[in-house]
């Protein structure tokens, strides 16, 4: 699975304003609403579901990366977005480091395979240190979009 298969380009944010875990999740879900990927009526329920998942264990998987996610019956296909916090946010991540790079995923309840393949793609690409750095330093959403496209086509050349 490629980034372009699940990342809504219009919902990418390069400079999130939020300074808390819930804040950044809320901002990213709002971005998906603004991009027309999820209905505004489902926003609150999706935020709550993602926070509930975080309560089971942080999705801050290390290297300044978090993958907040949930299943939700309101979506018929996997939707996701990417956000960067230039300052970093305390996400209770597994290595304790603040998180700068967020991949948020909302998947239909009956498609665990798609969710796994999205996680596979994200984690495989993020093993490339320079790709991580470039994403975190991106000046705007379009730059993030281009980096993701480059990764989709061959992996980032640094």
């Amino acid at each position, binding site marked *: 699975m490629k980034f372009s298969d699940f990342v809504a380009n219009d919902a990418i944010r390069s400079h999130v304003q939020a300074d808390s875990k819930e804040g950044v999740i809320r901002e990213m879900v709002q971005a998906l609403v603004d991009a027309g990927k999820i209905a505004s009526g489902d926003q609150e329920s999706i935020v709550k579901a993602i926070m509930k*998942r975080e309560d089971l264990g942080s999705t801050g998987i290390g290297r300044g990366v978090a993958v907040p996610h949930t299943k939700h019956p309101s979506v018929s296909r996997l939707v996701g977005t990417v956000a960067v916090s230039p300052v970093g946010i305390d996400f209770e991540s597994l290595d304790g480091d603040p998180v700068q790079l967020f991949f948020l995923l909302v998947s239909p309840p009956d498609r665990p395979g798609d969710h796994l393949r999205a996680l596979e793609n994200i984690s495989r690409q993020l093993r490339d240190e320079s790709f991580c750095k470039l994403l975190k330093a991106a000046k705007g959403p379009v730059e993030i979009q281009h980096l993701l496209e480059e990764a989709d086509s061959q992996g980032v050349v640094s």
Partner: protein
Amino acid sequence: MFTESRNMTKGQTAKSQTAKSQADEGMAAAGATLAREVVVLNSQGLHARPADAVAREARKWQSRIELVADSQRADGKSILELLTLAAESGTRLVVEATGPDAREALEAIGGLFARNFDEHMTERDS
């Protein structure tokens, strides 16, 4: 991420070592690789939370631990690496451990898979 040196004796495959492992305590201590097969029982596959559980368990041991699926290999102590396996429900994986506590580590990780990562909640998870 791959800083530890690998001590696996040349020419010895994981499989042949599995067969030998029961009998040969000394080899593990000397840094040979022991292996065992596990199956992903979780209906959601090896997603973020199980990967976290495996990495946490793996980090408790000195031995180098790797999970192998077909041709793919992942550092058992890294969630990021484990997620790259994208192991769906029913996938068979080989766990390899190399080091002084390889046997115990394999036992512990095998148990974690057998207990379905201690996940007692139902399909509600993500």
